[in-house]
């Protein structure tokens, strides 16, 4: 029953923000068309790009629910959140041929993804922890 609630929340958040993916993609395509000579896209590439970024934004937004499942431990929440995001990003990049499906490249992609993921997480965590401590100071 509880997991059903979180699943619904996943879908709801996903639907709310999924439209952002293709918008970001459109901006990137616009920049590329202005800066790269002879930049062009086939219909299939445009379709894959729009669909995959839509799904990526859906998963990205929905996955934030993992961190709010109270009965999950911190490592479990983090691992699930990381795994789902990594899978979504990797599939999106590979399906759009933004990175080749080559082991060496995938290793570099994974390393960058891990570094960025934890850098963002630690920064946000420390900022909110500071706020939390200041608020607790005002409570006591």
């Amino acid at each position, binding site marked *: 029953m509880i997991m059903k609630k979180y699943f619904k929340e996943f879908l709801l958040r996903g639907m709310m923000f999924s439209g952002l993916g293709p918008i970001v993609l459109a901006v990137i395509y616009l920049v590329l068309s202005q800066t790269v000579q002879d930049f062009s896209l086939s219909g299939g590439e445009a379709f894959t790009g729009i669909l995959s970024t839509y799904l990526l934004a859906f998963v990205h937004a929905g996955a*934030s629910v*993992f*961190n*709010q499942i*109270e009965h999950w431990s*911190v490592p479990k*929440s*983090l691992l699930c*959140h990381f795994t789902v995001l990594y899978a979504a990003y990797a599939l999106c990049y590979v399906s759009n041929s933004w990175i080749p499906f080559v082991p060496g490249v995938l290793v570099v992609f994974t390393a960058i993804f891990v570094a960025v993921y934890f850098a963002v*997480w630690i920064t*946000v*965590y420390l*900022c*909110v*922890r500071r*706020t*939390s401590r*200041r*608020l*607790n100071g*005002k*409570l006591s």
Partner: protein
Amino acid sequence: MELKIVIDKNRAEEVLVFAHERSELVKSIESLVERCEKNFVAYGDGCVRKISADEVYCFVSCGGKVYALTENEKLLLKERLYQIEEKLGNNFVKINQSCIGNINSIKSFDVSVSGTLKVIFKNGYTDYVSRRQIKNVKERFGI
């Protein structure tokens, strides 16, 4: 002091006091009116009763219904959350779109793994401060 009471169902209810100074009587009337304004009709365990806002730890909206969470009870209210918010005083703060908390009933704040601010009430109920409300919460605590 003259006391005048006008019973008129066609007018909006109001209490008007003419006084030379803010005396103890004026303050008492003020506090009495304030208390009456912040009462809510609550439904729970097959009975209906009036509860004061001070008894409530937080008001939460869940599944289209609004509840008042007290120390031990979860009471159903007929009012919408935005109507309740309008009635509440300075000791309440909006936590997120579906929760308004009593500042005096907050036990502590904590940080969640997702980097969101978690609020823990003295009755054990926990909720998350939405990013939109963080600034508001900080301001209410003078940060």
